């Protein structure tokens, strides 16, 4: 598998204040994205996710370090020939209609005539925006802008798609549809780089992730390697037995009506709980073993820093 995108020791500092003082945003970011994978770029707000993406796309010039896209230096416009980009909170020319908007970007990419018509039609359908094709973008909702923005990013049949917080502002159905589209992109052999702080989305679709915190990559690798299969604790919901009975077996998290939610950390104590419930003629409503999630790893890392 070839490397589609590679960052080596990228540094960037912004000048702030009246007497310019350098505030470092990226402190030596290095990672690479392999061909054909969905790569998740993870970090809390202000960690430097968008700055990294802007560096990749040449909207911001790194102070030092090297960025290559398909082996080509990112400083050359040619490197962006096969890249599609959807910015966070996309802003577009609001006086254009959806169709005109896509036509404009297609023309910039050198797509003309009949091919352009067909592509516009195809992508409007893909993102479910056919009905709004002749509506001015100023009348679009945020979710609609996100969709038309994705169509814009895919116009040039990119081999690398860069999405900055693509699920932000979408409703649950929209998010599912977006996830499906992203997974489909992978099936078509495209590489997807997506940044997000919504861990659920990343966990569901990404192959590999990098976690950035305060401008530094603190962990990266395959999702399977980062998340252990180990059971952290078991959540048991019990009905008909008072919470006080279980004090020595686990931690009762909440009670509602006659139901108790119990967190049990040791495996052998699970059987004891079940036995006790049977003795007291109660009922086990549910029993869910909780394994480590990306969220746990993430929260731990953020705390440790």
């Amino acid at each position, binding site marked *: 598998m070839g490397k589609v995108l590679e960052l080596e020791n990228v540094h960037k500092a*912004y000048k702030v204040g009246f007497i310019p003082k350098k505030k470092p945003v990226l402190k030596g970011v290095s990672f690479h994205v392999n061909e054909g994978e969905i790569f998740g770029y993870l970090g809390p707000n202000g960690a430097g996710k968008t700055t990294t993406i*802007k560096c990749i*796309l*040449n*909207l*911001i*010039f790194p102070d030092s370090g090297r960025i290559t896209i398909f082996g080509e230096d990112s400083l050359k*416009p*040619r*490197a*962006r*020939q096969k*890249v599609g*980009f*959807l*910015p966070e*909170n*996309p*802003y*577009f*020319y609001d*006086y*254009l209609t959806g169709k005109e908007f896509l036509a*404009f*970007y297609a*023309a*910039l*990419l*050198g797509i003309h005539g009949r091919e352009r018509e067909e592509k516009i039609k195809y992508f409007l359908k893909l993102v479910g925006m056919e009905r709004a094709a002749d509506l001015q973008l100023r009348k679009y909702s945020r979710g609609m802008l996100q969709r038309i*923005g994705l169509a*814009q*990013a895919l116009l*040039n049949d990119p081999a690398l798609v860069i999405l900055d917080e693509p699920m932000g502002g979408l409703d649950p159905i929209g998010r599912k549809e977006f996830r499906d589209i992203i997974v489909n992109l992978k099936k078509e052999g495209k590489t997807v780089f997506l940044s997000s702080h919504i861990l659920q989305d990343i966990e569901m679709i990404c192959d590999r992730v990098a976690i950035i915190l305060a401008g530094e990559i603190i962990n990266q690798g395959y999702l399977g390697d980062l998340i252990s299969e180990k059971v952290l604790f078991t959540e048991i919901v019990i009905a008909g037995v008072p919470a006080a009975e279980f004090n020595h077996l686990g931690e009762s998290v909440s009670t509602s009506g006659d139901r108790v939610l119990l967190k049990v950390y040791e495996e052998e104590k699970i059987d004891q709980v079940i036995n006790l419930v049977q003795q007291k003629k109660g009922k086990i409503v549910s029993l869910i073993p909780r394994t480590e999630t990306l969220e746990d790893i993430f929260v731990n890392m953020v705390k440790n820093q």
Partner: protein
Amino acid sequence: MKIITIALNTFKEAKRDRVLYLLFFFVIICLVFSRFLALLTVGDRMKIIKDVGLASISLFGMLMAILMGTGLVYKEIDKKTIFTLLAKPIHRAEFLLGKFLGLVLTIFIMTVLMTAIFMLILFLHTLTFEWKILVAILFIFFELCLMTAVALLFSTFTTPILASLYSLAFYLIGHLSWSMEMLIKKVKSGAGRTALKILYTVLPDLENFNFKTEVVHNLPIPGKLLGYSFLYGVVYTTFILFLAMIVFRRRDFV
């Protein structure tokens, strides 16, 4: 091709700008007003109409160039539309040149419209077309192209209000700098004179584009002077655009 696409989109955006129509409205008022002003004049009334008319086209054209030129690039950055645009495989120079050409196209169409109304008012008076006036207007247009480039240059690094003020200052300096030429003639040769000469070369001389007096008073215009003024316009506009590209080339879009 990409430049033309950006230019056409800029034109599309510019023609939605209300400021444009407001200024156009004022031009028409001024042109009509010149007719009434002429009634109060002793002597050649046509001169007043021509003088006020040409001055109006020049002044309001300049305001259009500055207000639109300073707004458009800034708006792209401020509204973040530039992110998706520059993420496409285009050079920043192509973007800037596209913006410039789109604005020039807008200014050109506005100038043509203003001229048509102006010529109509003149025709109603004299029942003849004075084609010589078009020479003066053509050079007003060249000046407007230069002002558009200047507005664009300032808008690449500062806010519209500051950029407008800088552009206005450029315009005023440009129309007053000819007096330096006279000063140079009076100063004795030496360091002072050389310094003045350098300063005069760097500063714009927008009076080079001013053929209003010649046209209004029906004085002969030497072809060489027209050629020189045209060349001056081309070189200075290219120089300003070049500066704008240098500023824009390494700019971070945070």
